[in-house]
């Protein structure tokens, strides 16, 4: 990286931190919640993009990894004195009943457990390709959920865990987001990241170039699971409560839309996608409310319409706009500078390039 870009990046991150402070101090909790949700979804979207976009392995297990992270945070950060109340149907397993961790430790533990699980299932699963991989990872995510439902003494089963110390702090979540994004950006730009892309482009050629498919896929899968676990942990802390139904495999579709819209194989795209999908869904809320337009009641607008729009958007994206907003491109300072200097020319050139 050039020195100029490095400096600009650092300034940019500091500026964004300033913005995070501002949002935390000045905005109401509704806005903060939306911002936080955007950031958490961006982390999970990015984690999914690592396997699906950069390594080209179509995995649909994100909900399961999130569940591991969220439950780790849920189980270990709930104050010990509340636990008896929460686990009213079946007492908590004494081995973990008295362990209370600070949030950061629980997050890392959750990420690590998710990564460990990814490692364990990676061996059989990552030999598969395409559709098979998609269905088996989806299957594992369901198995995790079913296990959580049944393991009452550890997870409180269907009753869920509540009273997770609430976290609606933009600064905290922003910091974690920055760490995740910086880490994955560096990883993708390292030699390992290039090996990932090689696997995406052509597995057989990559293997012939000495790239161990199994190890590299597994590595990406574990890193992805780790950050999905962290994202899930934040998600749990943000909601203050977790229960198994949160982590139905349909949850993964949200992140699929994020990365498809943002661009499979683009870090910038993951962030853009997360913001657009989260904030956009919030904005689209008026579709669910009865609408009076020019004195007429439009019968189209009633609960459920928003989700129809949401799914149509996903379809339109795949069909007509397969590369999403960013494709595999990234934000660079050079492009930004070019744009600021000569906005019209930049757009024209971009148009011509496409």
């Amino acid at each position, binding site marked *: 990286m050039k020195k100029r870009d490095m400096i600009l990046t650092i300034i940019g991150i500091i500026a964004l931190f300033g913005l995070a402070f501002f949002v935390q101090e000045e905005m109401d909790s509704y806005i903060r919640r939306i911002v936080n949700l955007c950031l958490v979804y961006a982390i999970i979207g990015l984690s999914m993009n690592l396997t699906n976009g950069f390594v080209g392995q179509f995995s649909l297990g994100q909900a399961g990894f999130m569940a591991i992270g969220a439950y780790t945070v849920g189980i270990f950060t709930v104050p010990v004195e509340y636990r008896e109340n929460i686990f009213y149907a079946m007492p908590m397993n004494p081995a973990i009943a008295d362990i209370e961790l600070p949030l950061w430790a629980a997050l890392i533990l959750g990420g690590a457990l998710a990564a460990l699980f990814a490692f364990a299932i990676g061996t059989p699963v990552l030999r598969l390709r395409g559709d098979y991989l998609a269905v088996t990872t989806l299957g594992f995510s369901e198995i995790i959920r079913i296990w959580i439902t049944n393991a009452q003494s550890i997870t409180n089963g269907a009753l869920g865990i509540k009273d997770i110390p609430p976290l609606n702090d933009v600064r905290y979540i922003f910091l974690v987001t920055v760490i995740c994004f910086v880490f994955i950006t560096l*990883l993708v730009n390292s*030699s390992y990241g290039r*090996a990932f892309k090689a696997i995406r*482009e052509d597995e057989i050629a990559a*293997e*012939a170039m000495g*790239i*161990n*498919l*199994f190890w590299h896929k597994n590595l990406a899968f574990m890193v992805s699971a780790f950050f999905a676990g962290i994202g899930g942990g934040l998600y749990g802390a943000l909601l203050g409560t977790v229960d198994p139904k949160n982590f139905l495999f349909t949850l993964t579709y949200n992140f699929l839309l994020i990365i498809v819209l943002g661009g499979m194989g683009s870090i910038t795209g993951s962030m853009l996608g997360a913001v657009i999908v989260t904030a956009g869904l919030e904005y689209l809320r008026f579709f669910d409310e009865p609408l009076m337009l020019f004195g007429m009641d439009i019968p189209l607008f009633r609960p459920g319409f928003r989700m129809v729009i949401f799914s149509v958007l996903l379809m339109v994206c795949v069909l007509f706009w397969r590369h999403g907003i960013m494709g595999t491109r990234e934000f660079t300072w050079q492009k930004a500078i070019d744009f600021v200097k000569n906005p019209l020319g930049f757009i024209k050139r971009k148009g011509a390039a496409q």
Partner: protein
Amino acid sequence: MILKTKDITMQFGGVTAVFKLNIDINDGEIVALIGPNGAGKTTAFNMVTGVYTPTEGKVFYTDAKGEQIDITGKLPSDIAKLGIARTFQNIRLFKDLTVYENVLIANHLHLKSDFLSATLHLPWYMNEAKQMHRNTEKLLQEVGLWEVRNEKASSLPYGQQRRLEIVRALATKPRLLLLDEPAAGMNPKETEELTEFIRQIHREYNLTIFMIEHHMDLVMEISDRIYVLEFGMTIAEGTPDEIQNNQRVIDAYLGVDEDA
């Protein structure tokens, strides 16, 4: 002897693609493998490079230290690390990546830093990375692809793509290079250039070359020895002159496939 296959056989279901193939390749040689379509040539390559594990038989490779290693059924990536690189019959470049990246990726197999130090860009990784970039630059300049280094691989003309695939294989620092029909689809002029290119790399990079090829001009011109395969079995072996005069080969192959 750098490569030796001993009675390797490959069966798919009930079909025997290659039967008891014995090939010996000496250090520094250029050896060609010819035969009609479907004779099992690519299958033989795939067995040597680990894509397939032979149903029977063994593949031996002698490394730089002169030690003979049994590489039968090893992973393709491990075989590449030992110093055997290859190209593919239907070009398999990393299409959406640039020429530069294509070659740079081929340096990855010699990377010693673990993934965490690579991700965190720790000093020892940065040193290695610098070396990888230097190697790539040097190689691209030497083979004349420097000017197109920022082009997408898929946007290169056909002949250049073939050449890039060979260069990418070279970047893994092989001792033995396997070329699967490098001149396929080329016109006589391009073939001529390719012949020259193969000569050049053979000379400059201290290589042993083992190739499958249909262009007889090219094969006869640069090969030291030739193996002829038909229906998965060797029907002849020898110098270009010997092969050209071998009646069985003429019957089975040369006469039929001349115009291909």
